[in-house]
Structure formats: C-alpha cells, structure tokens
C-alpha cells in the first residue's frame, strides 16, 4: 500500500514536472520547465510587509505606505529576476570518470548562458532532503562547469539520478528550479582490499602460498621483445652482442603468466573476492607484471597497461549485474 502510494506520488510528480528520462542534451531551461515558489524567507518577508502595512495605517504614515509598497513591489519583481537567473540556460552532461567504491563520484554539467550574467545557480540531487548542492556563476555568453560530488557507496553502475537546477538569487525570496535527467552514470569499481596481500604467483596451481616477491626473483630466460615490455626488462648485454632485442624473464615458472582467478579465492564471499581481485589488479599494474583475470564466465587474457586495467576493473565492477545497473 505504502509502495503503491509512493509510486503514485512519483508518477504524479513526474507528470507535473515533465520528467522525460533520459533527456537528449542539451536541455534548455524554458519557462515551461522552470517552477517557482516562495522560500521560507519569502514568507517571513511577507509577514514583515503586513507589519509595515499595519504600522503605516495605524500611525497614518504616508511614507510608511510608500516604503511598504516599494518593498512589496520589490518582492514581486524579484520573482522575475529569480526566474531570469535560470531561464534559457542550456545544460549538457559532462564526462564522468569511473571511481572506486567509497570514493567520490564527480558528475559534471556544462551550463551555457546565452544571455545576461547568472549568479549562484545551484545543482543538487532531486528529491533528497539534505543533498549537498554545488553553486556556480555563469558569465554572459559564457559557459560554466558545475561538478556534483556524490559518495559512491558500492560497486556497479551508479546512476546520477534526476538533478535539480535551482536558484534563489538575487534576494532569496523565491526558489526557482528545474529538473534534468540525462541518465548519467558513473562506473564504480569495487573497493580494493589491501588484505589480499601480495600477488598470487599462480592462479592455476593449488594456491599454496607460492608467491612471487618483488626483488628476489631469479633470472629465467630470454625471449623476444613484445610491445609493452619495460626498459628495465630489456637485456642490454644481449643487444650489445647484436643478438637482437631480447627481454629477460623472471619468475619461477616460464609458461604461466599471473592469473587472478575468482575461483581460486576459496572461503570468501563474492564481494570480498572481488575486492581482493581489484587490489591485485592494481598491485600487478604497479609491479609491472602482466596479469590475466578469470571470473566465472569471463576470461581476460594476460596483458598490462591502462586499457587492460580498465577493462578488468569494469568486469569486476559489473560482475553479477546482468544489465549493467547496480542492484
């Protein structure tokens, strides 16, 4: 019942506020989509105006009447100014960089202003009681980038949700706002778990603590140079003997690359496994060790570099979500 009434309210409010999800950028704030109501300060101002009027009547103060009416007119005019402060802003979504769970996701909105200067235009998540707003000024014929920061609670694809663009400038008597929803999302990687320890030497093996420790590795053999190998690995002496560009290989086994295997982490829950795997991905990148990733149904061939890392992290982030959205 409660769910039903909430859903109904949501539908009605969506209809009133003309929510279309997601919207095609850029969204221009026309008078059709800007709403305006007095603020609490506005109501208090109206109360003070009544006091001024009563005092003017009571003491027959003509200048008191003038003051009362000047302020009342000012209040009315300020509504137009508040409206004007939002009207015709053209809003587009900016690029959202992935982040880790527990870190901050930065959503960006680019606001273009075709008219007069705008001041103190705020953005916050809609329908949230204490959503922290971000404010910005937009110069005439200029653009401004407003970034909205939210804590990424858990891994997955974090939706930005509907945003409220609002302003109370110039005098704070009215609150003008408009909703936009571009369906912006932020990819949230699992929070890396340092408890995972050092990199597992072999994921295909039994998983007995046979660990490759940086610094005490033994020289194994030479192989031909592959793109992505670091300068440190190049066998300079071989090059000097004109044997071609060879690369020194280290480690205990020659055949197996480092495999980060979900299935190998026995005794841990799903999220714990993902957190450890994330940590290892980052560690392997740091140690410049090529690595592969095995998740149930997914296998990433061993490699290295930024692109490989991002792909692996994305698999980890979205593991278990069929449609790519957070549960």
């Amino acid at each position, binding site marked *: 019942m409660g769910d039903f009434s909430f859903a109904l309210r949501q539908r009605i409010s969506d209809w009133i506020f003309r929510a279309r999800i997601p919207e095609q950028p850029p969204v221009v704030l026309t008078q059709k989509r800007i709403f305006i109501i007095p603020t609490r300060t506005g109501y208090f101002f109206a109360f003070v105006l009544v006091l001024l009027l009563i005092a003017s009547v009571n003491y*027959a103060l003509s200048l008191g009447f003038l003051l009362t009416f000047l302020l009342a007119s000012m209040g009315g005019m300020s509504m137009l100014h508040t409206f004007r402060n939002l009207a015709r802003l053209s809003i587009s979504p900016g690029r959202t960089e992935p982040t880790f769970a527990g870190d901050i996701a930065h959503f960006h909105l680019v606001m273009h202003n075709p008219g007069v200067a705008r001041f103190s235009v705020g953005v916050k998540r809609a329908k949230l009681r204490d959503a922290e707003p971000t404010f910005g000024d937009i110069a005439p014929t200029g653009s401004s980038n407003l970034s909205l920061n939210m804590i990424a609670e858990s891994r997955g694809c974090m939706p930005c949700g509907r945003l409220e663009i609002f302003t109370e400038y110039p005098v704070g008597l009215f609150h003008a706002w408009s909703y936009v929803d571009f369906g912006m999302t932020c990819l949230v990687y699992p929070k890396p778990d340092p408890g995972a320890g050092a990199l597992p030497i072999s994921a295909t093996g039994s998983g007995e603590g046979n660990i490759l420790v940086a610094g005490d590795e033994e020289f194994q053999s030479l192989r031909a140079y592959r793109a992505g190998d670091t300068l440190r690995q190049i066998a300079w002496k071989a090059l000097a003997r004109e044997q071609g560009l060879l690369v020194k290989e280290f480690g205990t086994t020659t055949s197996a690359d480092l495999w980060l295997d979900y299935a190998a982490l026995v005794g841990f829950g799903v999220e714990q496994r993902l957190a450890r795997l994330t940590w290892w991905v980052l560690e392997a990148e740091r140690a410049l060790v090529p690595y592969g990733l095995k998740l149930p149904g997914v296998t990433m061939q061993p490699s290295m570099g930024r692109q490989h890392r991002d792909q692996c992290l994305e698999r980890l982030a979205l593991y278990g979500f069929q449609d790519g959205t957070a549960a």
Partner: protein
Amino acid sequence: MINSSALTLANVTWLVAAMGFVIAPHVQRLPWWASAVCLAAGAWRWWIARNGLRTPGWLIMGGIAFAITAGAFVEYRKLFGREVGVMLLIVMLCLKLLEMRMKRDAMVVIFLGFFLALTNFLYSQTILMGAYMLVCVWLLIATLIGFNRINSEPTIRDRLAPAGWLLLQSIPMMIVFFFLFPRISGPLWSIPQDGQARTGLSDSMSPGDISKLSQSDAVAFRVEFEGAVPNSTDLYWRGPVLGMQSGRGWRMYDSLPVSQFKYTALSPEVKYRVTMQPHNKTWLFALDIPSSLPPNSFLLTDYQMRASEPVNSLKAYSIGSHVNYRIDADGSPTELQKYLNFNSRINPRTIAFGKEMREKYPDPKVLIEELMKMYNREFTYTLEPPPLGDNPMDEFLFGTKLGFCEHYAGSFALIMRAAGVPARVVTGYQGGEVNPVSRMLVVRQAEAHAWTEVWLPDLGWLRVDPTFAVSPLRINRGMSAALGPVGVFDNMVEADKLGILRSLAYTWDAVNSEWNRWVVGFNQDRQRGMFEGFGIPDVDWRTMAMWLIGGVFVAGGGVGLVLLALAYRNRKSPVDAAFERFCAQLARQGLIRAKTEGPVDFLKRIERERPQDYAEAKKVIDAYVAARYAPTASEASSQRRFIQLARRFRSA
C-alpha cells in the same frame, strides 16, 4: 541554502553599516547608553567576523537583554509606548547582530531593518528623510543580495547595481499601490500620544511666549486662495482665543461649541484651502471670520475653530471667510461679564491707569484712540523685550516700554477690562509670504501674533491690534520688514542680492508643498477626491480593488515584459559582435560571407575577390582565429587584440 559560511567579513560589514545608516536618525532621541550599546554590538559583531571568533553564548546575551530592558524602564518609566518601543526595537536588533550565526538570522535582521526604517517616519516625513531612507533601503537590499551570492564574493558594484535596478523597477508598481490601495483612515487601536513637542501656539500666553516662537522659520501652514490674496492688513489667522486673565498672562476659557453662526458679513466671501503642518493641538486656523467649517470640526462661542482630533499629521481643509464682519452685536450681559474679570492683586498700576482713563474718556472709542496714540508715541516694537517681574504689565507700561505683540495685546486688554470694556486676547498668525513659484501663501511660526478684541455696543466684537499702532510695518509688510531678518535662513536670503537664494528657497518651498499634498497628506479623503476626479464619486472598495489590480497589472506587467524581453534577447559575445561588424564592412562592398563559410575560407575568397583588402583582412582574421581557438590562458588578451583590430578595419 542555510550555512554559516554566508557570514563572511564583507557581508557582515555591509549588514552592520546598513543598520548603522538606518539607526543614525534615531540617535538624537535615544538615551546615550542605548546608542553606546548599539555601537558596541555592531563593532563586536564586526570583530567576530573579522577574526573568526565565536558569537557570545545565550547567558551573556540574556544578561545584556535583561539589563537593556531594565535600563529602558528606568529611563522611560514604562515598557510600552512609541518612544520606548522604538528604543527597545533598535537595541534588541543590534543585539540580534551578535546572535547571528546563519544566513537565516541575517535575513531576519535585514527585514526588521526595513521596519526600523519605517519607525523613522514617525518623527519626520520630509523629502530629505524620504530620500535618506530610500538610500538605506538600497543598502539593505544590496546587503541582502550579498548574502544570496553563495559561491563568489561580490564587488561593491555587484551589490549596489542589481539592488538599484530592482528598486527602480519596483517604483512604477509602488506608485500604483500608493494611490490605488484602499486607504483605511484612523488608527486600528488607540495610540498613546507620547509628549512630542512641536512648535506652535499654545492655550495660554504670557510675555515672551510669542517672541520666542517668532524666531522659528518652521512653516505653520500653507494657503491656496481661489481668487486674489487679500490685503496684508486683512490676513489675521484666528487661533486660540484667550479670554481669561490669570496671573502673569492670559488663558483660554472652556467654551462650548456653537450650533450656528451668528455673523453679519460686510464683504464677499474669500475661499481658500489650508494645508496645516501637524502641531498636536486641536485648533485650526482660518481668516477672521470663518463662514463655513471643514468636516470633523466645530466652532466655539468665541469663534475659535477646533478639530475633533488633534492635528498629528498633515491636515488639509477648504474653508471660506469674510474679512469684514460684525459678530455678537447683541451680546448678552451675562455672556460678556466673563470678559470683564481680572485679577486685581497684580498689576495694580495698570488697573488704576485703566480706571483713570475711563473717567477721562467715557466714550470707549475715544479711549481706544487715546491708548493707541500712547502706544505709538512712547513704545518700541522689539523681538527681544527685557524680562519682566511679578507685575509684568506695570513694569512694561510704566518702565521698559519695549515689547512684542503679546505685551501690547496683553496690556491693552487688561487696561480695557479695568476701564470696564469687555476685551479678550486673540492669538494666531498675521500675514504670510506669497511664494511666486507655487502661488501659495506660506505662513511661518515667525508670523505668530497676538491681538485683541473689544466689545462695543451695536458693533459687537471689534478687532483692535495695538501692535499696529506701535509698528505699522509689522502688519503692512511683515515681520522681516519691521524687525529685520529672522533666523539663519532669512539672514542668508537677506544677504542674497541677486535673488538666487530667494528663488531657490521659493522653489524648495513649492516642492515641499507638492510633496505634502501628494505624498504626506495623501489620505482616505484625498484618495476619494482623486477617484472623483476620475469620474467615480462615492467609490467603494470593490471598484478600488479593480483599479488596483488593473494598475498593478499594467505597471508590474509592463516593467516585467521589458525585463524579460531584454533577458530573452540573444547576447553576442564581444568577439562575435566584432567579427560581425567586420563582415558587415565587407558585405557593403558586395563580399558576403556564407553562413557555413569558415574564417580561413573567407580570407581566401577575400584574396581572390578583393585583393585590395587582403592585407588588412588577413591581420583581422588571424587575430580572430587566435582569439576564437586560443588556449584559455591567453584568451582575454587575444580577444582584446582581435576586437581592436576589427574595430580599426576599414575596407578600401
């Protein structure tokens, strides 16, 4: 969005300064310690904002507030009433500054600051006060705008300019409200009248009173005659009639209102309109002798005109008078008896002198003539008569012989009573100055005057002005002519040979008079009159509401439409505008840039089609490309360079 970060040093400085401006006119009336508390609270608040300190706790604030209330009670002996109320409001609002922790608190202070601005009008509603308060409201709104600039620190211009525009745009609607908002007359609840001294005549007169009043330049009332202004010798503005001789001076009898006028008019009626400055007394002034009465007023048996309520605000009324008249020619002996009483214990020589004169001149008319001759011969008119002792009239008549109008009127009336002729002192104003700009007669406190009326059989009450006998100039040409310039202002005007100051003074007075008529004096009656002027007699509130809504719609809607039209006009960036001007130059030579043509392609076409412009155009277009696609760091300078080049470009 409520956060304490709104209380920046700049915002707090503005708020404290704006409040200081609003409170400043009150300082002359506040007890010194209250002003000191306000100053200290403002400085303390500023210090807190400057050094990022904590605001004082509620215990300290409560203690201060209690001390202030106690101090107010000691000072005023009450806690309710206008003076004490205003004082408490001012001091508590200053304390609220100290208690301010959030933006919302600042808003409360600013809004109550508007109310404080209104309290200044309780004491003065002049043009200057109005203008000063407009500046104060401007500052308060500029402060308000500063508090609503959340993410950036506004400059002084960023505060004042939008606040000024906002106020300017509100003025048309304010005017509509002012004239069309249905006015309710009278107080909603009875207001205790705090004793507020105003200059003007009083209900008693002793030697020295009127000469003191005569040093004031303040306007008493202004008069607009329907026809020509009567002769100066006829301009006797009748005020309080003092029939009771008591002690050193004269006082009013408690007279009853008369139900009908009993006068014989000997000259045609003069019609005029009086706009009176508030004097907190009930008397109204009319030329001797009023033939009709304004609403809410009545006439006493001694032809004094009274309003039913004290004149606490500007009051305007239309009235008629006959300057030649005969009143109470059939006066009854019992009624006249009270105008023969006098205190025989003081001024014995004067009383003896009166009796002696009566024996010498049994005909009262001759007696009056002889006394006038005496005044003319032996006495001197002066604004600074020497002080008099316990028998003032004796000392004056037989000693100093230097006096002002109240000396002459008082002594003459007493002599007449001693001689058995009913007599009374009439106070009011004599004369006035015609302002050539507004064509109005301006009567100032300096024109305050006292004369006498004596009752003669068949003639009734007859005006006798002994001052006229002493100094005919006073009556014929006015105060300044008789005694030289009065007051600082008159002195300045007197020194002004070219007449510039005088004409400025006249213009200023005319402006004030219009201000009084259309702003200060605009009340329910004037509003009804205005609607009658529109052709709507007996306007009801429904009609007024329709007019008001219509007016607000026109004024507010008009300004609003212009505002939004300007907001909806596309602004071009200065770079684009300059580039368009450049293209327009070439278009005039027949070289029109296609909408999709890039600047570099356009330059190639210029090279082909108008080689004579190529060299200059290349400079402009290179600068344009630099400005348009420049890295942000050098944006401003490359934009400036381009705009300069584009402006200088002339096609050959």
